[in-house]
């Protein structure tokens, strides 16, 4: 199943791995293929400014042709859910009650279940006449730990609540999450030890949950142009420790930095190989080159190009 032919994609990874840019680039790529896309954010709102739009909040908003955004607020999501369950007037009574807010904070997985229910609603093939329908919903999910809690929440909640509409819905959500034709996860990683460990652990955890890992994106890679002996020979020009700055003529001054960079790139290669070897066969892995500057809307097209093959 091609990545973008599913209905729901969750993009997650350790903090600082470029989730938001990758979610946005996948959205741009899908829109280019003619799909109507909604990109949903869960922790905060950064996408609207990336698309040169004002804040959209918890409201589905078209920002470009075929691209809509929403910044999901878990509390609003809970209200959406309750409203659909108990009707407007009753909902208002509950909404005003402090006990409800307390319950929302304390009940295990309840906020997450309501957020996942937003994903379900957004990704439906038919949302009725009042709401737009999307071919693909891409979620810029929170960092791995929280995203996994979110994916587990329907099962967690279902185990705790023995009845009621949320339990019933939680079971539907589990079915959606585990359906690889409808749902896939994109994991973002960096070529460093801890992020690679975490990515491999998350890949296994997803397997345990029965969730399909559609793509792993290794972000911010930058290889070396030198062979080891060549780099060491250059490094030998520097008199002291290579990560200390040295005085002297130009060749001496560049020697240390070049060797430091070469070794950094080599460590990166090792981590990349470790990641490739640790993933199950069939899991797509693609690398994106490091960029110095913050990603802008103009860069998203380039990122989409870079992801096109892996997402096909």
């Amino acid at each position, binding site marked *: 199943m091609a990545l973008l032919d599913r209905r729901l994609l969750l993009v997650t990874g350790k*903090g*600082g791995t470029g989730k938001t840019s990758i979610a946005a680039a996948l959205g741009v790529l899908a829109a280019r293929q003619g799909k109507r896309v909604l990109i949903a954010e869960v*922790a905060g709102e950064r996408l609207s400014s990336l698309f040169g739009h004002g804040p959209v909040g918890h409201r589905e908003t078209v920002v470009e042709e075929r691209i809509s955004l929403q910044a999901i607020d878990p509390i609003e999501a809970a209200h959406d859910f*309750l409203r659909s*369950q*108990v009707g407007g007037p009753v909902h208002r*009574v*509950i909404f005003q*009650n*402090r*006990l*409800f807010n*307390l*319950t929302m*904070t*304390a*009940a*295990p997985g*309840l906020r997450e279940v309501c957020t996942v229910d937003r994903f379900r609603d957004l990704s439906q093939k038919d949302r009725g006449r009042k709401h737009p329908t999307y071919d693909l919903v891409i979620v810029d999910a929170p*960092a791995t730990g*929280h995203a996994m*809690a979110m994916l587990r929440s329907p099962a967690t909640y279902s185990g*705790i*609540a023995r*009845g*009621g*509409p*949320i*339990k019933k819905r939680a079971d539907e959500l589990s079915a959606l999450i585990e359906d690889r034709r409808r749902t896939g996860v994109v994991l973002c990683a960096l070529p460093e*030890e*801890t992020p690679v*460990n975490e990515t491999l652990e998350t890949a296994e955890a997803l397997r345990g949950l029965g969730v399909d890992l559609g793509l792993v994106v290794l972000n911010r890679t930058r290889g*070396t*142009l*030198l062979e080891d002996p060549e*780099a060491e*020979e*250059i490094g030998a020009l520097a008199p002291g*420790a*290579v*990560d200390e*700055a040295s*005085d002297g003529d*130009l*060749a*001496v*001054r*560049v020697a*240390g*930095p*070049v*060797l*430091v*960079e*070469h*070794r950094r790139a080599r*460590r990166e290669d090792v981590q990349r190989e470790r990641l490739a070897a640790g993933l199950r066969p069939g899991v797509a892995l693609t690398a994106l080159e490091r960029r*110095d*500057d*913050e990603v802008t809307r103009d860069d998203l097209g380039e990122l989409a190009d870079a992801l096109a093959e892996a997402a096909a």
Partner: protein
Amino acid sequence: MSAADATPGGVTSTLHLDSTLADARVVVLAGGGGVGKTTTAAGIGLGLARRGRRVCVLTIDPARRLADALGLEGVADEPVQVPLEPSAPDGGTVGELWVVMLDAKSTWDGLIREYADSPEAAEKVLQNRVYKEFSGAVAGTQEYTAVEKLHELLQSGRWDVVLLDTPPTRNALDFLDAPQRLHSFLDSRALQLLLKPASGGLGLLGRGAGVFTGLLKRALGVDLLSDLVEFFGVLGGMSKGFGERARAVQALLAEPRTVFLLVAAPHPESLAEAGAFRKALSGRDITYGGLVVNRLTRAARHEDEDAVRDALAEALGDEDVAARAAAMHERIRRQATHDERLITEHLRGPGDEPVLLVPQLAEDVHDVEGLDRLVEHLFPAAG
């Protein structure tokens, strides 16, 4: 050290940990994920131990190889001593370096046992489904247990200084406010309402259960509600204990001998995060030490690629290798310039902010030897 602590454009380190941390009893390191915070905490810890102090580093989630090297693998919640060789051939005074890995769940369990009215009450909470989820949950509780553990370590009197490597969080206030927030949560009026026995019944769940609880039951499932009532029933009884502890922790964080350091990487997002932290900290009664920027790319200054290629070709006698090395140097020179610009822009923000620049190291830090190399950059010798 000559130009080692200067970036190509001349941003220099103005944060000197030796003086900033001279009297520190607590050092709190804050910053986003993936900026090398844990390694920095361990490095500062080792540096202080090398200066003769008894140090404990409280960490959240160290990289596995570093955890291995420090003897932490599989040890949660118990301080582990890192064996230190004397740093100088003549021996010198070496203090102690201990490391402890936070386990939020067991810290919580300990707290429940401490504050519960009876062992039976404690056991009841520990078995409660809502509690189990709550104590292991991601949001908020890790922040709380981190400061809680910090308090416990200081009380023991075994260490001169405790370093706290905080959980990566976007909002510094989450962490600072955790004790108070937990207290208010347990003390809230909604809770009182839930727990207050109504005409001898079981509060809102009793005979007088109103329309509202009926609706909640309908929407949420009744089993959960009774677990919630039980959970808050016991935890609410501990509210006074938590309240006192929250105040103690708050006071500890406000002490002048508690120094906050921010850790960042030279990425726009990371520096923006550090800026937000700084802003959040500025309105508070805390001692801010400064900003540590890790993994700074270093390159020779202002040199064009052709000049570098020619110089290397002459030194190596190989045009081809020289050309590729020069291309690589150009790449890192651009990045170094970029890193420097980011930091300069960041420092232009409001208020003076001492900054310590740590270059990209030639090797990853995954043992005490590697940490010692990092210490040279964290505590550069004067001169």
